């Protein structure tokens, strides 16, 4: 049975001192469906403060939307019964941004893996559990001897992020919700991480919601993309189409702001960002030459 994740009309407000009306709207009218058939990567891209992480928290059930619904298998995730909730918890797995903050520094890293084994009853004996953990560490190109028994501070950021991938490999969820998982990794480790994620999609049929501010990562992953600005999804479609023929001015602004490695193609225009409200003034990239020459 394949279940989908369906957001409809999700709005998220936060109380904020000084904001108009006393609240800040982080997400407005977000609707999309993540389907496991066929397995796919859906990227959600936008700048800091655009509401992308709030959407991740809504999908993961960590934050109840102010209005609108998040449904898993057709039922509101905040109204699931115990069995349904377990199924949802098992099949919708997160990878967070900060590989330093997700581990309890007092426990060995094994713990996050053993907890998963126990909670979801993946193994009947310790030996079986260990074999499972080792297999999963192999799958993410980590040497079990160099990881098991270590404390988080003894591993690099890339290794820690891959331990979280190993956990996902053990659980084989239908959905992975990855919130900026590579933004703290350097280029080489970043690529390894993305390749593993794509492997999982192909081999185990996982569908990933990939949240990032980095367009080159989106391009690398392929699949489809949604562009979010000021809490609204302003454009969506296949990566190739959105990147090559962006229809929304904000998408064009984002693409235009990637620094091109050519000193002869410097930006000539300026952009103004009103960061207090977490928004970029779209539509003012004076950098680009007019598309049609003015005669």
């Amino acid at each position, binding site marked *: 049975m394949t279940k989908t994740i369906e957001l409809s009309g999700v709005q998220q407000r936060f109380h904020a001192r000084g904001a108009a009306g006393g609240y800040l709207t982080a997400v407005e009218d977000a609707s999309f469906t993540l389907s496991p058939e066929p397995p796919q990567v859906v990227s959600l891209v936008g700048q800091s403060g655009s509401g992308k992480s709030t959407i991740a928290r809504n999908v993961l059930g960590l934050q109840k939307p102010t209005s609108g619904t998040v449904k898993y298998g057709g039922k509101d995730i905040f109204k699931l019964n115990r069995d349904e909730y377990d199924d949802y918890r098992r099949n919708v797995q997160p990878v967070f941004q900060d590989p330093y903050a997700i581990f309890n520094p007092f426990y060995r890293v094994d713990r996050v893996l053993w907890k998963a084994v126990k909670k979801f009853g993946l193994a009947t004996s310790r030996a079986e559990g260990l074999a499972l953990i080792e297999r999963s560490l192999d799958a993410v190109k980590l040497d079990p001897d160099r990881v098991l028994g270590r404390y988080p501070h003894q591993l690099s950021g890339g290794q820690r992020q891959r331990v979280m991938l190993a956990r996902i490999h053990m659980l084989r969820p239908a959905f992975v919700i990855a919130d900026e998982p590579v933004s703290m990794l350097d280029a080489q480790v970043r690529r390894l991480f993305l390749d593993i994620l794509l492997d999982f999609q192909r081999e185990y049929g996982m569908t990933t919601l990939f949240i990032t*501010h980095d367009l080159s990562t989106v391009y690398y992953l392929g699949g489809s993309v949604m562009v979010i600005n000021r809490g609204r999804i302003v454009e969506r479609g296949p990566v190739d189409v959105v990147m090559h023929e962006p229809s929304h001015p904000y998408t064009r602004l984002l693409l235009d702001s990637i620094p091109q490695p050519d000193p002869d193609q410097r930006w000539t225009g300026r952009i103004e960002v009103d960061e207090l409200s977490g928004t970029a003034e779209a539509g003012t990239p004076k950098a680009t030459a007019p598309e049609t020459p003015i005669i």
Partner: protein
Amino acid sequence: MSDDDIVLEISGLEVGYSTNRGEVKAVSGLDLAVRRGEILGIAGESGSGKSTLAVALLRLLKPPGKVTAGSAIFRPRGRSPVDLLKVEGEELRVLRWSALSYLPQGSMSSLNPVMRIGDQFRDVILEHAPDRKNTLSELIPRLLAQVGLEPDVARMYPHELSGGMKQRVLMAICVALEPDLVIADEPTTALDVTIQRVILQSLVDLQRDFGVTLVVISHDMGVHAQLVDRVAVMYEGKLVEVGDVRQVYKQPQHEYTRQLIESIPRLGRRAS
């Protein structure tokens, strides 16, 4: 070119880190001249020694790091030239912020979390230029405006600001006392593209309006292409190439430079 046009002249710089397995050379035999008023980029991959170079020049290098040879003659306007690698104590303290300042990475930890932004400006300015005390109320809003921030920001705490705003506050503090040289270490890393563009814009403004000399360290060749006048490329602790940015991008003299330029993730390359 006369000595006056060179604000910083590094020669034969060697920096090493002593480890259990002997000394690791992070910077070796580096010669580099920074011209007054230019933006000089320092490029290179992680571990190429670019940040070590910055901390050595700023005298923030901590053991086991050690400068083993070389000199860095700094010629601030209106002061006598000093060797940054030898200057000590009070003499060094006086140079900081007023002649030489540092713009750290766009990380979250560079501002004091329990002080209002305005107080952090006051701290730096009063410590290094007490005679400006009477102009503070006018100076701080002007500095904030310079980097595109509202005067209200002075009353805020760092946690009320976004990453890009914090980075701009740091830029404003950096130029508060009109230093001769600002060393920026990865000033836009960890910021998203639109904010990065705004920061780069402001850096150019600062150079134009204040005449500061900027040394910008970045691994991103796109940033260098957009921002700098000249670029120096480091590889394994050595300087492999220095030149006018257009020249370097068009005709890289060194194989490594060419690879670095080509390695930029562009829209158009993806997983197979």
